[in-house]
């Protein structure tokens, strides 16, 4: 394989990673910062899209599509439905003073610093091994789900049934 082409591909991967990661982080900040709850919800939808793109870069094809289908397509629809039904207004200004922004920034910096201790291991570069073409495909994940992890699978389906019934019961006007 010619050297230039390999480096070109790797550079493209880095560029795409920064684009999607930057989008994910920027919209995550939007979720926390917007006054209007619907703007927050939409920022979260875009963030989920960006994270789904990052999953696709990690060869998790099935999970990337499931992320869009379940998170961006169903859970966020539910959120936006509730916001519209409750007719929530944008929040008032006086509770978002300077001290709140300061607290938020402090939390972000401290947590990221704690995790960022990873940089101490800079001399060990954790390069990804080469994965074969069937890694992360629907077939392989499906095989695992139905053989090794069949019990959590059935359990989660019962959990979802309970959640459906619970949701209907909790939100009824009269029982």
């Amino acid at each position, binding site marked *: 394989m010619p050297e230039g082409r390999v480096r070109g591909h790797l550079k493209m991967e880095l560029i795409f990673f920064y684009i999607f990661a930057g989008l994910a982080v920027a919209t995550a900040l939007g979720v926390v910062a917007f006054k209007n709850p619907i703007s927050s919800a939409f920022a979260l939808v875009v963030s989920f899209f960006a994270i789904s793109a990052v999953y696709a870069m990690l060869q998790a094809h099935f999970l990337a599509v499931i992320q869009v289908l379940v998170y961006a397509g169903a859970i966020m629809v539910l959120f936006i*439905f509730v916001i519209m039904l409750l007719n929530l207004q944008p929040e008032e200004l006086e509770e978002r003073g300077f001290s709140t922004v300061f607290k938020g920034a402090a939390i972000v910096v401290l947590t990221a610093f704690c995790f960022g201790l990873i940089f101490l291991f800079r001399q060990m570069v954790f390069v990804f091994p080469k994965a074969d073409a069937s890694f992360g495909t629907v077939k392989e994940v499906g095989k695992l789900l139905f053989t090794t992890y069949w019990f959590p699978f059935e359990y989660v389906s019962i959990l979802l049934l309970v959640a459906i019934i619970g949701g209907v019961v909790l939100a009824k006007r009269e029982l």
Partner: protein
Amino acid sequence: MILTLAKIVVPLFVILNIIPLLIWLERKGSAYIQDRRGPNRAAIFGVIRLGGLIHSLNDVIKLLFKEDIIPARVNRFFYHLAPFTAMSVALMTFAVIPFAAPMYWKGKLITFQAADLNAGLLFILAIASLGVYGVMLAGWSSNNKYSLLGGLRSSAQMISYEVVMSLAIISILMMAGSLELNQIIQAQGDKVWKWNFLRQPVACLLFIVAMFAESNRLPFDLPEGESELVAGFHVEYSSMKFALFFMAEYTHMIIASAFLSALFFGGWQVPFASTEFLRGHASQVLRIVLAGAILVHFVAGIGLLSRGKTNVLTQKWGDRRDYEAIILGNGALLIALLLGAVLLYFWPIRLGRYGPQIVTAALQAAVFLGKILFFCWVFIWVRWTLPRFRYDQLMRLGWKFMLPLGLANILATGAALLWL
């Protein structure tokens, strides 16, 4: 890279050009179903009317130049975002639809879809769930209680019938054993009796109904019901944004037809002519297709010329409109002559190494397009034939009838696959 760009641009171009054709088809089709003529006045230079096709061009120009009214106190960002979301989500689905069988070009396998995803069917479901956002945003951001109601109803209807669609797709998935659309189409083969609409009739019916509900077409038209909620969720939109919603609805219709024909009716498979057969006999196929085209144009030309002559002789309308048939007839005969010349000149057709594959791909894409247009016509036909569902009837149908039917179908398919 250029190939991928071409694979994105060409289907997009074709789809966006089918939309005016569909608008014409809807107006003329609905008119003839209702025993009237439909619009046939708009003309170019007073002569070319093409049976009302120019009206679509008129619509485009009119909608471009209309005043763009934005109501007061709307949330500007979402108001402008909603039609854009609706249209782009509808167009994104075309990335996974294959238009022809995969072929080898200079050693590389080329699939005729922009994104040969491993989880193609799931991508369809994912994008269908995203279609809800355009409608909800439009309904909410218009600062109008009627459009909020229309938007909420429409989104509730769409998410209910997404479940039905998923269940129908699961039965197809079980039969084909793969989520890639190419595999599903190839598994259907070219014999019509082996296509999925005969092997899974219940799933086909469920899918058709779910697709009607997903694209908000009659009989599931209540959210944009013209007599109840004015225009539902897009009542406050004018000119180009309304045009975008309108086009998004037709694009949904085209997507629904494309998926219906891909999943259940063999997609790009030419009936009774498999890919190997076509590639083996490419020159004969090309000759037959050319001869057929010449015949059609010749007959059309003669018919139009005779009609034109009677028009001019009896002065049917008395002005320039009489000459339209003559012009079109002459045009058709000219095309027939050109094709005849091409056929005779290239009679010993020498297709190179890739010639048969290109011919096959073109024929399969044309057959696919024909199937899409046929199902679009079925959509239009049903729209002007059936009355509208009431909202609670619609919800009851989706949850209490179609969902158990879909589950029973999956059980039956599973049992049949296991023990037959």
